[in-house]
Structure formats: C-alpha cells, structure tokens
C-alpha cells in the first residue's frame, strides 16, 4: 500500500478518535482516546518521514496524558447533560464550520498537491547542511543553527509556561483569604 492510503487510514482513525474523545461522558476514556489520537499523530509523523517529531510527539503525549490523569482523575467529577442553549450554539457552530470546510476546498486546490512541495528554501538546507554545520541530522541543524533564534524563543516559551504554571499553582497571595471568603 502506498503511504497515502496508510495516512488516510490513520487520519480517519484520528478523526473518529477525536470525536469520541469529545463526546464520551467518562473522563478517563476521553483522556485515553485523545492519547490514542496523539499516538496516531506520532505514527503519521513516522510515515511522513519525520522521525524526530515522532519521538518528541510520542514522549510529549505520554507526558501530557500522565499529567492530565494525575491532575484530574481523583476529582469528584460529574459530567452534565447538554442543555437547550447549548444545542442552539452547537448547531450554529457546526453550520459555520461546515461552511468554512467547504470553502477550504478551493484553498487546498490552489496549494501545491500532496507530495510535491516547492522546496525552494529547503533545497539549500539539504544541499549545504553537511558542509556548513557538520551535523548529520538536518532537522537538528535547522533547529539549533540556521533557525537557532526560534529555539531560543521556544526555550523561553517553555520557561514562561513553567514559571506561569508555578505562579498559578503555588502563589500564596496576600489577598487569598479575602478571595476565599468570596467563593
């Protein structure tokens, strides 16, 4: 089977998985379903010849499932039935999104077809990477050398996110008692 068929199979599987994850009433099943979708992304990366990403996606998937389960599972959780207002909102949203989807067909026709990217910039990396950076992994050399500034930004994003999460979790505010009184 060609790669494309496999990919259609995997992405279709992911579509079903994500709908299941959103619609399931049970929280643990939903988290597991979205975990499976993430592993599907990892598989798709592998098929699309991106092993770096497959590894990172796989690991981050494990990591985020662990923290989501750890954070949420022991809460006394009740899922609620869908209300009336919700159904109206849902209907409007679905119609709008279907319209966007149909419009997007024109866009994807105008883009280069699957399997034939333009490669004008990328060709330079493929040809010159080994001689210029002496790194065998071209993705690594782009991430850390040609576009190292992006990675500095990425490291900062992670630092900000972690600092932010710690601030949100462990902040002992002077106003805390007052806030508690209100809730």
């Amino acid at each position, binding site marked *: 089977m060609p790669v494309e068929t496999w990919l259609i199979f995997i992405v279709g599987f992911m579509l079903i998985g994500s709908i299941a994850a959103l619609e399931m009433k049970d929280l643990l099943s939903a988290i597991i379903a979205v975990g499976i979708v993430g592993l599907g992304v990892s598989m798709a990366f592998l098929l699309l010849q991106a092993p770096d990403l497959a*590894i990172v996606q796989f690991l981050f998937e494990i990591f985020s499932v662990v923290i989501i389960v*750890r954070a949420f599972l022991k809460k006394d959780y009740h899922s609620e039935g869908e209300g009336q207002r919700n159904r109206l909102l849902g209907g409007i949203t679905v119609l709008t999104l279907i319209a966007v989807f149909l419009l997007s067909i024109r866009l994807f026709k105008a883009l280069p077809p699957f399997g034939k990217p333009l490669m004008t910039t990328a060709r330079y990396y493929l040809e010159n990477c*080994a001689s210029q950076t002496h790194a065998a992994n071209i993705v690594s*050399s782009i991430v850390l050398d040609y576009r190292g500034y992006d990675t500095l930004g990425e*490291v900062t994003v992670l630092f900000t996110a972690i600092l932010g999460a710690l601030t949100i979790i462990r902040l002992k505010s002077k106003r805390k008692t007052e806030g508690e009184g209100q809730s």
Partner: protein
Amino acid sequence: MKQQPGLTLIAKTVTRISVWLIVLYGFYIIFHGHLTPGGGFAGGVVIALAFLNVMLAYGHETVTRWLNISFMHDLEPSAGALFLTMGILGIALGGGFLANVVHRGTLFNVFSSGNILVLNIIIGVKVAMGLFVVVWSLAIFRFFEGGDK
C-alpha cells in the same frame, strides 16, 4: 501502607533498576541529537519521565526528600541564561547573535557540529528540570492547598 507511600515493593525495585537505564537513554538521545533522530527536547523529556517514574513508584514525599527540588528549579533559568550566553558569545566573537562559536569537528563524530551539541545539552537539562518541576508541583498541590476534599 501509610508509612510507605507509593506503589508495591516490586514496582519500586523495578523502578530502582530501570530508572538509571532510562536516564542513560535520555543522555544518549541528547548526545546524539545531531546524528540521529532526537535531540535536547526528546532527551530532556525522557529524563523528566524517568524522574516521574520514580515519583509514581515512591510517592512524591520520598522524592521531595531525595531530590533537591530548589536546585532543580534554579537549574532551569541557568540553562536558559547559558543558551542566551552562547548567543551573546556569538556577537562577542564577531559572528552575530547565535553564530557558531565552537569548533565544528568532523561529520558523523559524536563531538562535532559545534554549537548544536552544546545547545542540545543545555536544552536537555532545561527541559528535564522544567518538566519535572511542573509535575512535582502538580503532585504536591493537592496536599498543601487542599485541591479536593
């Protein structure tokens, strides 16, 4: 069970043996980031997962006692500052921000590719420490501030 938080003895023993292998594998991924798939991020997450493994098996109280969390907390911004310092060194040595400052070496050697290896190690340390600190804080949160009752 109250005196011994965490999982059973078997799980603890297995964890005790396997965690070093996992950490070793994480370092392997980091050090071969420029030759094989992987790199600082992947390796860092592997190391963080190894610590997480210990925490799941032994319980977070034990981990808090064993590991110096505030040191790990400080290691993260130091790694960030080191990354930035590498960039500034690039300016200082005349190449421009984030220019290569380390000898390039030969292709396919482990110690090659200049900045890439150094930055991979910095990122690996940073990611491992940062992610572990986040998980650790999420774990202790419920006990200190009464997340659920």
